[in-house]
């Protein structure tokens, strides 16, 4: 039987994606799990201020350096969580979201995970989220918030 027989080609088309997608789905499970952990550990800190939130997530990610899916989970949630603050106009949150966008995109590329699949790891409207990511990617880096000066003028209260 020629390896180019119809049944072989059909078999490749049917089974190959299953074989190759398995590790990808494992990766996504890890991303999802660590996104959830990041949410539990750091999300409510944004309520105090965006720097506390950012520090919490960066420290968390530092402990997972080398484990790309975990890092991606942390940084992807970090971005989505920051965008929740951006959408209600929290001072400094755009900078935080932009910062995490750069980080998660870099790891996402390394892992070869597409935008839609990644989006499923943190609940929300993927059409909107992907459109926002696309828009923000085109934007230049925002002017830095002056962290030297203490918390911003319109810091969040609790």
């Amino acid at each position, binding site marked *: 039987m020629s390896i180019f027989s119809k049944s072989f080609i059909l078999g490749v088309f049917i089974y190959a994606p299953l074989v190759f997608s398995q590790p990808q789905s494992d990766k996504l499970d890890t991303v999802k799990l660590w996104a959830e952990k990041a*949410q*539990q550990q750091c*999300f*409510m800190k*944004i*309520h*105090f*201020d965006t*720097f*506390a939130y950012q*520090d919490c997530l960066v420290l968390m990610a530092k402990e997972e350096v080398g484990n790309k899916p975990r890092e991606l989970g942390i940084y992807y*949630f970090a971005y*989505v*969580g920051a*965008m*929740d603050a*951006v*959408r*209600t*106009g*929290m*001072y400094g949150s755009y900078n935080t979201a932009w910062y995490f966008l750069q980080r998660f995109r870099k790891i996402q590329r390394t892992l070869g995970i597409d935008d839609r699949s990644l989006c499923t790891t*943190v*609940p*929300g*409207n993927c*059409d*909107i*989220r*992907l*459109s*926002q990511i696309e*828009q923000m990617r085109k934007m230049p880096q925002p002017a830095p918030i*002056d*962290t*030297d*000066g*203490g*918390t*911003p*003028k*319109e*810091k*969040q*209260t*609790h």
Partner: protein
Amino acid sequence: MKLKSFAKLAILTLSLSILGCSTGPIKPSTKPPVDVKIIAMNDFHGYLNRSDNAELFLMDPDNPGKVATVKVGGASYVASLVKKLKSENNNSIVVGAGDFIGASPAISSFTQDEATINVMGEIGLEVSAVGNHEFDRGKKELLRLQNGGCAPGKEIGRETCIKNREFKGAKFQYLAANVIDDDTNQTLLPSTYIKKFNGVTVGFVGLTLRGTPKATRGAVGLTFNDEIEVINSHAAKFKGQGIEAVVVLIHQGGGTTAATLNDKSCPGLSGEIVPLVQGLKNVDVVVSGHTHREYVCTDKKTGILLTQANYYGNVITDINLQIEPGKGVINKRANNLPVITDQNKKVPKGYAVLSKDADIDREVQMYDDLSKKKRSAIQGYIAAPLPMITIEGTTARNNNAEHLMGDAIADAYLASAPKEAKADLAFINAGGVRSGLNTAGPITYDNLFGIAPFGNNLFYVDLTGEQLIRLLEEQWEGANCRNKPLMKNNVNMCGRMLQPSSTLTYKWDVTRGPGKDFGKGNLVIVDSVRIQGEPLDMKKKYRIVTNSFLAEDGGDNYTVFKQGAGLQDMGVVDIEAMVNYFNRYPASSPMPPPKRRISCDTCPKFY
């Protein structure tokens, strides 16, 4: 026999009803259901004027997948929206979930927040839970805001009792079901509020988070009880009294990962409010707050409708209940409505721009004028300039310098602590000193605001002598140095220097080499450290006053603050501390320039 059959039927009916089964067609109620509207807000924080960067993302039907940004907030726009909503249903009530006051801008804080209490009453707020910030100035002050009377020690007509030189207290009722006054063993304020609407009754329970004492210094002499126990106890009583709907107003919240306003799929809801709601019984709606987020969710386990309306009056929740008399809530829905100002030229389809309510605008304007007058008023005098120290040849602030202005602010921080707190010293980060005072003479509130515009609350934190040395070393360690080398005569003068109060003096030695890793520096000459003139005791705990940026967050890489004990919000905003401090120095006795507290014999002449 007849009796036996009746008993059997009764038992069967009771059993089935206990099991939640239907025993046949429900007897139609003789009275039609009543629609009740609950208009809810939270975390207003005295923002009578719109906060400068208050914007919201809305779905834009004309651009699928895109969002539109709108400017929102301001009391006069809130009033317009409330009026509009009330006009839609006579059976309506305006409610709140706390933090209407506290951590508020000058327009409100200058009046001890009486301005906000008055305006919220005028807008129609009827009942609200207390939040942690309602306790910022202590229980007596909260009771004064509820019951009326002028604030002691404040200038009548300008700082208190503004309208007709009197303050009548809140037109609305604060609720504090889980807050027990230790003096009376009773709740500080009522626990519940009951309102009848055209034949149906709604019971409200109002309370704040149990962790309030951790979030404010003012919560003393009070005990904060478990939220779930308190709510369930009142809700059961309500049901026993035949009250058809139970609404909880609570200053506690969560957050979602939603991308736009009003995403009712409520993606990724998390936070303290989740287990709290899941522990409730006999409750129909939970109006939440505290976390400044925005959501409308239905808890899958309990069916409870859970809402929160962002902050600063940017959003209002429109909750609609259909209540069957004698039965209960048969339908409930809610929408978060943005308070869209007329500064927006275009808004997405389905949204409308609001115009200002003229009456409320007039009142807000009156408070605004008052605050402007106060801002230009002289707060004190200085005998000599307190200039900003800049990096040689530039206009950039030198962060590794002792700034006289920084010294004065630290002294003001320390002076704001009551004697009984026994505070030993105070710090402000160099970056927190935004400018100097370049001429001797009078200082206005606006001058002080230009120096310290952050509105940070002050905190106590206790550090041991050993930790204090570590803290000082962090001034020249890791990122505080490495990222910003500052060469002078081949010596790296990098660092971020904490500005100390006069009660701390010390020497440091630059030749020991700044820029080591965190935890490795040894530049402070330990023997030279004096606190209130006494040598440092490494084991003793010292109470430090500093701002929230340092105390809470360990900002500017001063991580030692996070290791401190007894972190406590003083309930004092930094600018208030400065105003009170400079008030001590009239024209006849201006503030002398502060004496230097830090010295470095090995440093090149630098400033």
